[in-house]
C-alpha cells in the first residue's frame, strides 16, 4: 500500500544470512559459492544468524548523529510506466527488457556524479541579508579653494650677526663651561630678542648637556621657554636626567622664579632620593645626601612644596641617612613643622 522507495526492500532469509556473515565473520567457503547457490541456501538450520546485535549497534551509532544527517533520502525514484511507451512494450507489461535494464543501471550508477550517489533532504530557504543602508556613503567632491605652494625662506642672509654668534656660543655651551663674558653676551642677546630662544638650537635632548656645563644659561633659557608648548618636554628631561649639583641648582632656581607644576617637583624629589639610596660610592653618597637635604630645606622654608605631600618619603630618607648631620637637621625641621601644624589648626578653628 505504501511505497517506500527509499527503504531497503524485504530480503530473503538466505540473503539476510549472507549479509550477516559478510559483516561479522565471513568464512572462506562462502566466497566459493555463486549468488544462485547462496540464494538457494537453506538457512533455517543455520546458527549464528542473529543480526539483532548488529542492528542494535547500528541504531546506537545512528542515535549519536544529528537528525539532519539522517534525514536524507535517495534521489532515484522508480516510476514504472503504466502505459506502454513504445511499440516493443505492447502486450508485455512488466516484462524485463535486459537492454533497457542495463542502460538504466549504467546511467544511474556510472559517471562522475552518478545519480545514486545523490540524496535529497529538507532544505531551508536561506534569505540573503538586505544591502546595508548608509545615509552618507558616497564620496562627494568639493573643490579645494586653497593653493598650497612651496614657500620662500625669508631668513636667507638676513639672520643678523648676533643670531649666528649666539648659535655658535650655544653649541659651545653644550660642550663646556662658557666664560663669564660669553655668558653675559648670550644672556644679553636673549634679553634683546624674545624669540631668539627658539632659534638657538636647544632641544630637550640637549638640555642635560647645557645644565651640566652652564646651569646659569640653562636657567635663563628655560625661563624664556616657559611659554613654549614644549616646556613640559624640557621639564621631563630635566626631571629624568642624572642628579647632580647643577641640575639641582637649576631646579632650585626655577622653583623660586616661576611656579612649577607640583607633580614635577615631587617627581624630581623622589628621583633624588632614589639616586641617593642606590649609589654605591660612600663618599659621593654622603655628598649627594647633603645636597638633597639642603635642597629640600630650602624648598620647605620657601614654602614651595607642601610638606604633607612628601612627608613619609622624606622622613624615611632622613632616618636612613641619620648619620649625616644635614639629614638630622632636615628631620628636626620636619618634626617642628609637624608639631606646629596641629597647633595651627585649632587656632584657626577657634578664630
Amino acid at each position, binding site marked *: 500500500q505504501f511505497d517506500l522507495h527509499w527503504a531497503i526492500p524485504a530480503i530473503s532469509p538466505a540473503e539476510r544470512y549472507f549479509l550477516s556473515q559478510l559483516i561479522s565473520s565471513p568464512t572462506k567457503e562462502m566466497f566459493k559459492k555463486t549468488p544462485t547457490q547462496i540464494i538457494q541456501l537453506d538457512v533455517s538450520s543455520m546458527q549464528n544468524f542473529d543480526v539483532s546485535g548488529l542492528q542494535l549497534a547500528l541504531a546506537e551509532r545512528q542515535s549519536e548523529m544529528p537528525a539532519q544527517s539522517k534525514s536524507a533520502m535517495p534521489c532515484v525514484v522508480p516510476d514504472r510506466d503504466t502505459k506502454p511507451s513504445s511499440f516493443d512494450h505492447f502486450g508485455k507489461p512488466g516484462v524485463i527488457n535486459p537492454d533497457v535494464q542495463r542502460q538504466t543501471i549504467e546511467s544511474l550508477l556510472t559517471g562522475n556524479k552518478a545519480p545514486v550517489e545523490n540524496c535529497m533532504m529538507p532544505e531551508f530557504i536561506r534569505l540573503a541579508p538586505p544591502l546595508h543602508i548608509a545615509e552618507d556613503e558616497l*564620496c562627494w567632491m568639493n573643490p579645494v579653494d586653497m593653493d598650497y605652494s612651496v614657500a620662500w625662506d625669508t631668513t636667507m642672509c638676513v639672520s643678523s650677526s648676533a643670531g649666528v654668534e649666539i648659535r655658535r656660543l650655544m653649541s659651545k655651551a653644550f660642550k663646556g663651561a662658557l666664560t663669564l663674558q660669553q655668558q653675559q653676551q648670550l644672556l644679553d642677546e636673549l634679553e634683546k630678542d624674545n624669540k631668539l630662544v627658539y632659534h638657538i638650537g636647544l632641544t630637550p635632548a640637549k638640555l642635560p648637556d647645557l645644565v651640566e656645563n652652564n646651569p646659569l644659561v640653562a636657567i635663563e633659557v628655560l625661563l624664556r621657554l616657559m611659554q613654549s608648548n614644549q616646556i613640559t618636554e624640557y621639564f621631563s628631561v630635566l626631571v629624568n636626567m642624572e642628579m647632580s649639583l647643577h641640575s639641582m641648582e637649576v631646579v632650585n632656581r626655577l622653583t623660586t622664579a616661576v611656579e612649577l607644576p607640583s607633580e614635577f617637583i615631587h617627581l624630581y624629589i623622589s628621583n633624588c632620593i632614589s639616586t641617593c639610596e642606590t649609589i654605591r660610592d660612600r663618599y659621593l653618597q654622603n655628598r649627594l645626601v647633603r645636597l638633597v637635604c639642603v635642597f629640600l630645606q630650602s624648598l620647605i622654608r620657601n614654602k614651595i612644596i607642601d610638606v604633607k605631600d612628601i612627608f613619609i618619603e622624606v622622613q624615611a630618607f632622613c632616618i636612613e641617612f641619620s648619620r649625616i648631620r644635614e639629614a638630622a637637621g632636615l628631620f628636626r625641621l620636619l618634626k617642628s613643622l609637624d608639631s606646629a601644624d596641629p597647633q595651627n589648626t585649632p587656632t584657626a578653628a577657634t578664630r
Partner: protein
Amino acid sequence: MADNKAKNDSDAEMETSMPLPQVTESQKELASQAMSEFDKKQYGSCCSLMHKLIAQRPTDPKVAHNKAVAEFFQSGFLTTDEFRQQLSKVCQMAHVNIDNSESLEDVDHSVIYFNQAVILYHLRQYKAALNILDKLFQYIEPLGSSIVGTYRLSFRYTVESSVRDRKYVDSNNEFQEEALAKKATMLLVELYLCTYQPEKAMGMVHYAEKTVFTAGKNAGEKENKEDQVDEAWKPKISLYKTRCLLMMKSMKSCKREIKSLMSTQAMNTAVIYLKSNFEHLRGNHKKAMKMLGSVSTSDFTEAGECMPVMYNNNLGCIHFHLSKHHLGAFHFRKAFQENENAIKDIKRGAEHNKNLSGKTLNSIGMSRHFELLYNMGIQLLHCGKAMPAFDCLVEAVQVFRSNPRLWLRLAECCIMANRQNNDEDRKLEKRLEVIQGSDGSGIHRKLRLGPGLKKDNPSPGTPAIPAATHEFAALCLKNALHLLPEDPLTAEKVPIEDSDTVKITPEMVLVPAPPGNPLKAAEVASLRCSILAASAYVALCLNDYTLALLHAENLLKQPKLTGAQRYLGHLYMAEAQVAMDKIADAIQLLNPELVVDISLTLPENKTEQDKSERDPEASESKGYFYPWSPKDLTRAKAIAQYDLATAHAIRGEYDKAGQNLGESSSRIGTPLPAQMYFLKLYLDLIEGRRNMAQVVIKDHFGHVTPNRVEMKMNSKPGVPRPDTAVS
C-alpha cells in the same frame, strides 16, 4: 669613552662646517632684492639674482634652497622631480634628515620641512606630510602666536627704536615668519581633512583663529596692515570650518556657517559646492542639484582640480540618493571618462619628461580614479550588478583599506554574485532543478530527483585571492569587523573597575571610512549589525554552523536592530541550530507569529529626522534602498513557517511539517520557491505516499513522466483514494 670621542668629533665637524662666511652688505642687498622680485612674481629676475648670490655663497643652504624655490616657480611648477632633488641637496648642506621628522631641531630649517610637506601633500602622501607638519607646528607655533608677537612688536617700537634699519628688516622678517606659521597651519588643517580627522582639523581651526590669525589685533591701532591680513584669512577659515562641520555631519552649526559664507562670497565655486553638499546631506536633493547646475563649469580650478569630474560625480551621488541608480551610474561613468581625459591630457604633456616632472605640482595628485571607482562600485551594487561592482570595489579597497563599510560592500557583492536576490528560488530554472529527469523506460523507468538548491562547491584556489566567492566574503567581513571599534557590548563586560573609561566610551570617536565621511557612533552601530548579519549568512553558506550561530547570537544581542535584521537573525540562528541538532530551540525561534516587523530601517530614525529637519523638502525620499524580498509581513511569515516545516521534517515530525508546509504555501506567494516542491515531494515520498508525489510531479513537472495517477488508479484499484484528496 670612544663613543664620547666620536661624538665630539662629529660635533667638531659640525662646528667646522657650521660657520658660514659673514653676510656682506652687498649680499644682503642681493637677497632682499631677490625676495622682493619673488614677492612681485618676477621669477625670472629672481632666478638670475639667486644665481649671482649662490656664486658668492655656495655653501649657504638657505641660498641654495631659495634658488631651488625660485627655479621651481619659474618652471611653472613643472619640475617637481628636480625640485625634490634640490631639496634633498639642501638638506645635506643643512645636515637635516628630511625623512625623519624627529630630527627637526631648529626653527631655521622649518621652511625646508614645510616645503617637503607641501610636496608630499601634492603627492597625496598625507600621512607622511602630516607627520612632518605635526612636528613642525610645535616649533612654528610660538613664532606665530599673538602673545609673543604683540609683545615683541611693542618692544621693538618702543625700547629699541634707536636701531632703525635693523628694526625694519626684523619686523618684516617677523611678519614673514608669521606668514609661514599661517601657511603651515592651513596645510595642517587641510591634511587633517584629507585624512578624515575633522575633529582635529576643527580643533586646529579654532586654535589658529585664536592665536595665529588674530596676530596684531591688539596692536591694530598701530598696524593696519596686520588687520587686513587677518580679514583676508577670514573667509578661508570659514571655508575650513564648513568642511569640518560637513565631515562631522553637525548640521546645525554647519547651517550657520554656510549662511555666513553665502552672504559674503556667494559666487565662489567652492562655497557653492559646499552648500550643495550641505543640502545633499540634509536630503534636499533637488536643491543640491540646482546649486550644482548654477556653477559655470570651467574645466580646471586654480588648484588644478577637474570640475567636470566633480560635477558629474556629485550628480551621481544625488541620483544615488534619489534611488535612480542607473542614472547615477551614468553620471559616475561620465565622471570617470572626464577623469581619464584630464589625465591623458596631462600625460601627453609629460611624455618627454620622466616621472613626476612635466605635470604641474597641483595636477600630480589630481586624478580621482579610486574615489570614482569606489562610488561607481557602490552604485553598481545597487543596480544589482554584482560582478562589475566587485571589480570596481576590489580595486578601490586597495587604496581605502581602512574603510570597514567598503569591506562590507565587497562581501555584499560576493553574496549577490552567488544569490542575485531572494526571489531567485522562485525562478523557473530553479524549479526545474527539483526533478532532473528520468532514465530507462517501461518497468525500468526511474525518476531522478534533484539534490537540492544548496551548492557546496568549494571555490578553487585560496580565499585570499579576490574572487566573488563566499570564502572571500568571509575574509572581507572579518576585516570589516576588525576595523570597527570594539563592540561596546563585549567591551563593557571587562573593565568595569575604571569609572573613567566608562565615561569615555559614550563620546565615541569617529571611525574613518575613506573616501567617504567618517562614521558616527549610530552609523557604526548599524554597520556592525549589517556586518554581523552578512557574516552569519556567509558562515551558513560555508557550512560553518558554529560560527554562524555565534554571529547570529551576537547580532540579536545588538541594542538597535531593524525588524529585518531581527527576523534574519532568528532564521540564521535556527538554521545553524538545526544543523547542530538543537532542533527544539530552532522550532521555537521559527514560530511565524514571532515575525512582527521586517522594516529595513530603524523606527526611531524617522522620528529623529522629523524633529531635526523641519524643512518639508527634506523629507523627500530617503528610500534609496535596493529592493529586498520578502517585501511584506505575510510572505516573511510564510518563509519562517516554511523553515519551521523543514525543521519538523528533519526531526521526523512529518504531520506537523506537512501542515506548516501547506499553510506556508498558501501565503508565500506565487510562483512558489523551488524548496517547497522539494519538501512536498520529500514528505510524500518519505511516508510512502507515492501516488501523491506522482500527482505533484505530473502537475508541475509533467515533462519527466508519462504516468498519470488516474490511469494508475484505474489499473490498480487497491490504492486507497483518501490519500490523494489530502492536497
